[in-house]
């Protein structure tokens, strides 16, 4: 099967998925009341994950977004799956609601039936606030409203396909297509001069092998860990690059989400621990050359060192990518803060420069993450030289 056929198949699959999610104009919101532009809210909205994929905001304030499926598991009603259009504008569907403020802001919570009924009543009460008769009732409704926010609110387990998850799936798809086709080409041709896509991928793979894996893990042991290092390098690099492209299906801040980087660092941690040999564990729990009375201090210090290295990996990637996105978004929102055309003449070149720098940072962060992972793995598998 040729590469062209593979790409056609995957393209059709993606198209079918998109069509089934009702791409066009599925969710529209009216413009907010306040005219002033709130830059921090604008920036945080773009950094955070969301249950729908915002495409464009039309001139009259209507938001056009692609809805994404929400999959929640609650203790009461089991597994529920529905499209995020059902929960738009703060609606309550099957007892679930997306909170916009308060302690659970941004999350889906499960509200009971009574909450729904009284919440609806409170909304109607607020609508008639100028009526004196209902004002007193509105007060009691409000106090009940407050009480309900302290009531038992169940947080269901949220397995939704959010923006970040959808883009991670896309990155995985791209990686599968890329590497399966390159592997297929090698199987057909054997080791010969690379053509086409191979010529593009092969130098990068050799770079990861020769400059990252072999110097840190060693010539004899690096084969076992090459798949993981290659996966992590290309995953982080692809997601960083895709996060910089502003339109769907790209443009979600995947590697700037601390949950994603936590999982990547945790996997590195697991791999280092499970491939640690006797030498490694001896260095942690019975560091040679350390007198016995110092060991109660040394062991906690070593354990903290063991945990802080992946922790640094997590925070470094998260902070670099998020900081880059915040800088670009701030430069663009300068135009909206000043509300003048001439600002764009200053802001757009700056933004272009920062975007190019972000391309470099995308590669460097993928490289540093992979390098440090290889370094930690190498430290765990090194043989005793004494």
């Amino acid at each position: 099967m040729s590469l062209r056929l593979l790409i056609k198949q995957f393209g059709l699959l993606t198209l079918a998925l998109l069509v089934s999610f009702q791409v066009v104009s599925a969710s529209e919101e009216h413009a907010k009341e306040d005219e002033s532009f709130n830059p921090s809210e604008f920036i945080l909205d773009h950094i955070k994950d969301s249950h729908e994929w915002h495409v464009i905001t039309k001139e009259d304030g209507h938001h056009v977004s692609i809805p994404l499926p929400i999959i929640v598991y609650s203790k009461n009603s089991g597994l529920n799956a529905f499209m995020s259009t059902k929960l738009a504008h703060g609606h309550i569907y099957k007892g679930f609601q997306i909170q916009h403020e308060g302690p659970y802001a941004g999350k889906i919570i499960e509200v009971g039936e009574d909450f729904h009924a009284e919440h609806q009543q409170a909304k109607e009460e607020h609508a008639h606030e100028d009526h004196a008769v209902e004002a007193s009732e509105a007060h009691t409704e409000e106090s009940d409203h407050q009480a309900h926010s302290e009531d038992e609110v169940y947080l269901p387990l949220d397995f939704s396909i959010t923006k970040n998850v959808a883009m991670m799936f896309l990155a995985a798809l791209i990686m599968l297509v890329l590497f399966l086709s390159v592997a297929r080409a090698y199987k057909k041709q054997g080791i010969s001069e690379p053509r086409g896509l191979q010529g593009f991928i092969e130098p990068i793979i050799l770079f990861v092998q020769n400059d990252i894996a072999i110097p840190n893990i060693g010539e004899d042991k690096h084969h076992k860990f090459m798949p993981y290092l290659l996966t992590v390098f290309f995953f982080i690099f692809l997601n960083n690059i895709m996060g910089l492209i502003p339109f769907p299906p790209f443009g979600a801040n995947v590697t700037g989400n601390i949950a994603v980087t936590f999982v990547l660092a945790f996997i590195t941690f697991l791999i280092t621990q499970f491939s640690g040999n006797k030498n490694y564990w001896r260095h942690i729990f019975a560091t040679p050359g350390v007198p016995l009375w110092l060991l109660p201090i040394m062991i906690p210090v070593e354990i903290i060192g063991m945990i802080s290295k992946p922790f640094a990996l997590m925070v470094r990637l998260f902070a670099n990518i998020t900081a880059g996105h915040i800088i670009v978004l701030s430069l663009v929102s300068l135009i909206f803060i000043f509300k003048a055309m001439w600002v764009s003449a200053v802001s757009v070149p700056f933004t272009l420069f920062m975007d190019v720098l972000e391309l470099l940072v995308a590669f460097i962060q993928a490289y540093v993450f992979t390098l440090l992972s290889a370094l930690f793995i190498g430290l765990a598998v090194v043989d005793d030289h004494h």
Partner: protein
Amino acid sequence: MTGTLAAIGAGLAVIGAGIGIGRIGGQAMEAMARQPEAASKIQTAMIIAAALIEGVALFAVVVALLQG
């Protein structure tokens, strides 16, 4: 008030990172001038060191963002 203090804290951390990375860059340039054939190795090492220092500075920025 916490917002302003957070911003000041982030600025202070970035001063440290600026000084550190500036020194790395300066010494790397000096080393490349002394031995041009080792230039690419020096450049690679410089970028790695800069990324690590930037990681530390961004720790502080993350804490500042959390607070402010």
